[in-house]
């Protein structure tokens, strides 16, 4: 008979506890109640959600799948109302659930200061996703927000709303910000930094009342200051949520009293997280809560474990603000300070010593040595031997050189690197030596830097130290794990050795795997197409699904279909054909793309040949919206209609698209042609852009408007349309012949230099030769793949259908 485990509260601590239990193979019938209508997410990361750097989906730690896989009975949005200890049953409004063991993880509730107006609409706290969403909604540019409380949470709320454009004022009761973590000097530097970001800070401010009739309008302070406000966020502190425990007559101090095993005064009831009090201490930071989760999981599994609170360090998750504090830094008799200031750089460091031991550290502006100091504090060892240079950090100890890695190298294996997950240096090193050689792999294996991410830099430094030269060598890594050659070497050898097939490349260049991998095969297929257009036969099975199926796969396995719309110009017949196809194939969404054409989303694979055939019949061909090849040529209306147009930009765009379509390139290629410098076709952020002027055509290249945003750089001024066509075809060929697979033009130009490209293009003979090679390739590859494949619809359907057989 499985034990019945009931958990009240799906927070970070209880989520981690369940993880430990299931990882250890524990078998319980688990029922999980949560007052919030959702499962476990990383509450620490609400601040990046508020500032817009992350989305909610990115901070979910346990999705519905996870709970289902573990067989957890989830009661989300169902608050528990009563615990019956005598008959061991937990009640929600929906009924009772019996337990053998009960875990209370109700967390904490924000403290609401008892001022008039606290119940007005527009007053929120900062605790869960609802609060975060309320602040996001209220943070439109120009809105006025007041944050009451200048602690960790209040400042993250203020920075997040300011990042979204709101005018934010922080009111703080104490003399300086974050007084529990910072001394006045560091608090002052922090205030200056926040003020530079447009956040107003009012210290020593006591809130008298919140004003407003229907909703909040202003906040008035005891000193008479009035701050107008559309939103007020109270972040003055939290108190443990103990109402259920009180009602059940468990021992409760400030929090629910627990022993070292996390057991409450009732042997069948346990508690963990922010709602507990252990040894007269409350807990708010995540590291000790995770420790509690580990201990309680062990207790429930019948193992021995005891919770012992450890020192914690604090970091503020506000992008661009670097502060660190750890240990005890209050002034007291017998304590001494070592202080370092560099006002120019805004750096402040203070170490607090008692006798020979380091007791606390506060750092602002340069926190690189934080982990090292934190470790000295935790170890409590004598620092008298290095006291003279202590403040300069580990790099200056023991005569070592000022190598930035020395600090990390000096850390002992038991030094904690990831505070969120309690991962020490030794475990990370073990994972790396066991083969994890990328940051992602280290994250997967150890969880280090997988939660709040502030230790990412440290983890990378440990990787650099452990992997030594091979990590540095990653600057120009081999193509993939199948070979030791770089992309550049492979391209060079394909040409110099005359290798004309994928098996030939793998054989003669000593590939270490059979059949390569999903990373090298598409690259090799491209290199061979580009270098041997008339000899090599495209290998469809070495292409990614989108290029193999000539449509973009969507997350549900359906495809999107984009017919070519030359220069973004269409006509009633094409639009009718598109509308008819959308009806005929039940297309769930039709969307206008950024490249001036129409996307039909949600087409089933087996319908692709038929829809292509219909488009072919209407005179349309593939738009290659899926290809590492020419995508679109965006145009404006030019002299045809526009009163400012200087040239026929629409016509030139269409002619360029007709010249370039069907060509395969290392990565996608998008063009824009604008009819005048007003640049309505946004040509100057394309891979290749043309801006028409009275005297001709300005061709610029290497723009970007994706993950990176970059303006194009001037390449060539042409005076006639044929010259434009030749220059652009030649430049495209130069890119095709030289770039690394998946590098967009701007990345490739950054490597080879624009001057080199220009020299190749300006030389008339060289330009003509490039143009001729481009046209030779086009003679093979400028064919409509849709027409080719529409002829064999059977290959797109299932090979066999056994659905009826099952019913036999």
């Amino acid at each position, binding site marked *: 008979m499985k034990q019945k485990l009931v958990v009240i509260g799906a927070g970070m601590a209880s989520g981690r506890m369940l993880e430990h239990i299931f990882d250890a193979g524990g078998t319980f019938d688990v029922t999980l109640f949560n007052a919030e209508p959702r499962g476990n997410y990383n509450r620490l990361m609400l601040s990046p959600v508020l500032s817009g750097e992350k989305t909610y989906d990115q901070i979910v730690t346990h999705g519905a799948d996870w709970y289902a896989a573990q067989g957890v009975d989830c009661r989300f949005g169902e608050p528990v109302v009563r615990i019956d200890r005598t008959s061991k049953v937990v009640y929600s409004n929906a009924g009772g659930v019996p337990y053998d063991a009960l875990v209370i993880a109700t967390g904490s509730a924000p403290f609401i200061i008892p001022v008039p107006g606290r119940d007005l609409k527009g007053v929120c706290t900062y605790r869960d996703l609802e609060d975060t969403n309320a602040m996001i909604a209220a943070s439109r540019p120009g809105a006025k927000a007041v944050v009451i409380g200048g602690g960790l949470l209040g400042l993250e709320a203020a920075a997040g709303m300011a990042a979204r454009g709101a005018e934010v004022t922080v009111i703080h009761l104490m003399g300086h910000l974050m007084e529990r973590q910072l001394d006045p000097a560091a608090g002052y530097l922090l205030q200056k930094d926040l003020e530079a970001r447009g956040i107003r800070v009012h210290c020593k401010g006591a809130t008298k009342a919140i004003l407003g009739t229907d909703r909040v309008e202003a906040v008035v302070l005891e000193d008479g200051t009035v701050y107008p406000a559309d939103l007020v966020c109270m972040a003055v502190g939290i108190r443990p949520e103990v109402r259920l425990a009180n009602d059940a007559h468990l021992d409760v101090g400030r929090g629910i009293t627990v022993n070292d095993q996390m057991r409450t005064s009732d042997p069948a009831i346990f508690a963990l997280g922010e709602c507990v009090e252990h040894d007269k201490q409350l807990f708010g930071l995540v590291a000790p809560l995770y420790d509690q989760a580990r201990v309680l999981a062990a207790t429930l599994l019948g193992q021995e474990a005891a919770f012992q609170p450890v020192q914690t360090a604090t970091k503020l998750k506000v992008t661009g603000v670097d502060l660190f504090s750890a240990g005890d830094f209050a002034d007291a008799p017998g304590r001494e300070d070592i202080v370092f200031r560099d006002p120019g750089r805004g750096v402040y460091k203070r170490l607090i010593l008692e006798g020979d031991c380091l007791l606390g550290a506060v750092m602002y502006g340069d926190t690189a040595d934080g982990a090292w100091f934190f470790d000295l504090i935790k170890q409590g060892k004598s620092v008298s031997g290095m006291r003279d240079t202590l403040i300069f950090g580990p790099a200056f100890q023991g005569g070592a050189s000022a190598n930035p890695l020395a600090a990390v190298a000096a850390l002992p294996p038991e030094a904690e690197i990831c505070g969120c997950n309690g991962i020490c240096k030794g475990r990370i090193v073990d994972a790396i030596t066991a083969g*994890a050689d990328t940051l992602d*792999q280290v994250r*997967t*294996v150890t969880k280090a830097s997988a939660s709040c991410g502030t230790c990412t830099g440290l983890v990378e430094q440990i990787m650099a130290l452990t992997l030594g030269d091979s990590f540095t060598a990653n600057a120009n890594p081999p193509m993939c794990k199948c070979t030791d050659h770089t992309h550049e070497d492979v391209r060079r050898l394909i040409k110099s050795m005359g290798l004309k097939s994928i098996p030939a490349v793998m054989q003669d260049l000593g590939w270490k*795997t*059979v*059949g*390569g*991998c*999903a990373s090298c*095969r*598409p690259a090799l297929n491209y290199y061979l197409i580009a270098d041997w257009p008339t000899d090599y036969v495209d290998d*469809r*099975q*070495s*292409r*990614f*699904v989108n290029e*193999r*199926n000539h449509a973009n*796969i969507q*997350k*549900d*396995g359906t495809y999107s279909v984009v017919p070519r719309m030359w220069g973004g110009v269409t006509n009633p017949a094409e639009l009718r054909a598109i509308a008819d196809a959308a009806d005929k194939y039940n297309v769930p969404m039709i969307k206008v793309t950024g490249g001036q054409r129409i996307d039909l989303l949600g087409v089933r694979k087996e319908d692709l040949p038929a829809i292509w055939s219909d488009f072919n019949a209407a005179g349309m061909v593939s738009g290659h919206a899926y290809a590492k090849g020419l995508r679109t040529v965006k145009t404006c209306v030019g002299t045809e209609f526009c009163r400012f147009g200087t040239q026929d930009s629409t016509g030139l765009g269409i002619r360029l698209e007709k010249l370039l379509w069907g060509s395969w390139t290392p990565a996608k290629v998008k063009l824009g042609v604008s009819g005048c410098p007003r640049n309505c076709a946004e040509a100057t952020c394309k891979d290749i852009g043309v801006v028409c002027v009275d005297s001709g055509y300005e061709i610029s290249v290497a723009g970007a408007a994706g993950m990176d945003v970059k303006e194009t750089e001037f390449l060539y001024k042409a005076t006639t349309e044929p010259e434009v066509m030749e220059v652009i075809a030649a430049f495209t060929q130069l890119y095709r012949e030289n770039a690394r697979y998946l590098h967009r033009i701007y990345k490739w130009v950054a490597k080879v230099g624009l001057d080199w490209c220009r020299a190749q293009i300006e030389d008339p003979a060289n330009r003509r030769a490039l143009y001729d090679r481009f046209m030779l390739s086009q003679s093979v590859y400028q064919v409509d793949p849709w027409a080719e494949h529409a002829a064999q619809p059977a290959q797109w359907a*299932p*090979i*066999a*259908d*056994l*659905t009826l*057989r*099952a*019913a*036999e």
Partner: protein
Amino acid sequence: MTDFIDIAALVDIPRQGARVVKTATGCIAVFRTADDQVFALQDRCPHKGGPLSEGIVHGTSVTCPLHAAVFDLNSGRATGADDWQVQTYAVRAEGGRVLLDAAFLARRSAA
């Protein structure tokens, strides 16, 4: 007991590729390697449900087309750090035909 059904000619599946067999309980991807070995796996990546039949086949592995998880065609196990397992089915190539063990269908209908 095994119950091998003739589902297709071997040449109908491209080398280093796959085709899909529809069943009442979901699709099965039937893979053919460069050296004509055949494998059958559930056509659904445990990560986000990607169709493995559309992945690139290399050696006796396939890479999921959605987020590049790699699975060993022999065992159906993910080769990376993630502990993922895809259901495999008995299949063999004989005399130019591909035969799939349909015992799982019988089990389904009996259940």
